[in-house]
């Protein structure tokens, strides 16, 4: 049983890699346009941070956070989101495949549909957003004035991986809704693109109710806010117990389980309705 699951995942990952390779080569058929898109992607996302930096030229602190601290929040969420966006960001094209019937072709192959949909139209240009996040994160790490301990050092990669998984789960769950021809991609975008924009700012600048919402309802606060505040040596505005700052991997697992359930339900409903 567990053995079969491991083999299935292995097969899924292998095929994900194969299909991604095909898309990358397809992209390279139009090399120039790819380079321009990647640069555009980088620039468009970098503008976000420029806006924040300009803000800091007028004030020294934002919601009690210094520029390197905001850059740390920005860098962690952008990196986590960038990983999910690069690997799964094209899943919202599933709706189109459902509507034009090309999903049927994917269902005739001996490969998990999730892997095929995840790799569909893989867009390498999305490394633009990711690299921008990584650069900012690196810059903030050199400027941050915090006391590093082994625990806080370990928290950084842990939060990046958990954050990527949480965003990835949102992408999968959002795509799962598209099996029913209704287009739910706007709602999903609110959680993913909207979510990462939210998390770029310190939680202190938002109303407590909003912070509560993204902590308990959609657990986006676990992407970076809660663990990052621990790293920065600050208390969270909700005054949650300390262990919550380390709960991100658990939350990520929970999100995965929910996404997997949504995916299976969606796929099953497609196969019995045909659209």
């Amino acid at each position, binding site marked *: 049983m567990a053995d079969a699951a491991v083999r299935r995942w292995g097969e899924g990952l292998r095929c994900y890699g194969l299909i991604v390779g095909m898309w990358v080569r397809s992209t390279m058929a139009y090399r120039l346009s790819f380079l321009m898109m990647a640069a555009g992607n980088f620039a468009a996302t970098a503008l976000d941070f420029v806006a924040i930096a300009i803000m800091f030229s007028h004030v020294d602190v934002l919601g009690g956070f210094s520029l390197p601290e905001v850059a740390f929040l920005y860098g962690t969420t952008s990196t986590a989101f960038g990983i999910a966006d690069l690997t799964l960001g094209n899943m919202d094209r599933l709706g189109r495949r459902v509507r034009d019937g090309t999903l049927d072709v994917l269902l*005739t192959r001996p490969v998990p549909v999730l892997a095929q949909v995840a790799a569909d139209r893989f867009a390498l240009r999305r490394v633009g957003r990711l690299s921008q996040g990584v650069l900012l994160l690196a810059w903030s790490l050199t400027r941050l004035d915090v006391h590093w301990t082994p625990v806080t050092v370990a928290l950084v990669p842990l939060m990046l991986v958990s954050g990527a998984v949480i965003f990835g789960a949102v992408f999968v769950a959002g795509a799962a809704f598209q099996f029913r021809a209704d287009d739910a991609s706007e709602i999903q975008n609110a959680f993913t693109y909207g979510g990462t924009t939210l998390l770029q700012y310190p939680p202190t600048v938002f109303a407590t109710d909003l912070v509560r919402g993204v902590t308990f309802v959609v657990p986006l606060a676990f992407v970076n806010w809660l663990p990052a505040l621990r790293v920065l040596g600050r208390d969270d505005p909700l005054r949650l117990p300390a262990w919550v700052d380390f709960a991100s991997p658990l939350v990520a697992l929970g999100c995965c389980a929910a996404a997997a359930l949504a995916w299976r339900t969606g796929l099953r409903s497609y196969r019995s309705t045909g659209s």
Partner: protein
Amino acid sequence: MDAFIELDGVRKVFDVRRRTGLLRRERHQVRAVDGISFRVPRGEMVGYIGPNGAGKSTTIKMLTGILTPSGGRLRVAGVDPSRDRTGLARRIGVVFGQRTTLWWDLPLRDSYGLVRRMYRVPEDRYRANLERCVELLDLGRLLDVPVRQLSLGQRMRGDIAAALLHDPEVLYLDEPTIGLDVVSKTKVREFLREVNAERGMTVLLTTHDLTDIEQLCKRVMVIDHGRLVYDGALDGLHAVGESERTLVVDLEHEMPPITGVPGARTVKVEGTRQWLAFPATHSAAPVVAAVAGRYPLVDLSVREPDIEEVIARMYAERPTP
């Protein structure tokens, strides 16, 4: 005879919601496949025909496991396709004439490489299969051309090859000759006949081109409104379809329409030439004798019924339930 494909009372009902007003929605059910039973033994090539919306594609989707039947029992190679779709996928090949599985921006060869790795086709099998397809489908010069530069017929040939590289036991073709010119159609048909004979591959084929059926399938199934209305030899359709043969006579001079020939009626008069229709199940001899006995004949010929007309009449005779 061991049945490779088995259907027993298979049904597929679609729930369709239609917007009738701003907020009002109307639900109704479409019975796309409404209790179909048939068996196809291993190695047979069967034609599956019917008018638009008859349920052909829906049947194929159930056979591949894309759709789960609403009722009835369905087995392919002893497997329930909707329960073990991925397992069965290795053993079947599918061509949807209306959509390609090839990679638009990459050379044809790359799409085949992906099939090889996705299906884990052993290197020697892959090479042999590709060679055979290239030869029979005339793909040699196309292998290094990006798919977007191929013509429709070339791409269809490429798609058919892609469906066969992993040695499937059964091949489903949904309108494989749609939009092809005569030359491409002939090539595709020759190829299908070849793989069916050579590898004993079971083939189920839907089409709107009856020449495909005439040239490829000994057995044909006709489906209409989700029900099987005919299953048997192509020739047998004439009896079922109440088709008619035509006696064409040339008279010495113009005359009023011929009358009084038992079992036949005059359907057309054009100058000295007249057309008489009589049931295909009848012998032509008594009709010819009756006409020759009473009319001054110059020449005559008997036209066999056109299979397309037969089927068109079959479709037309079945009113919407």
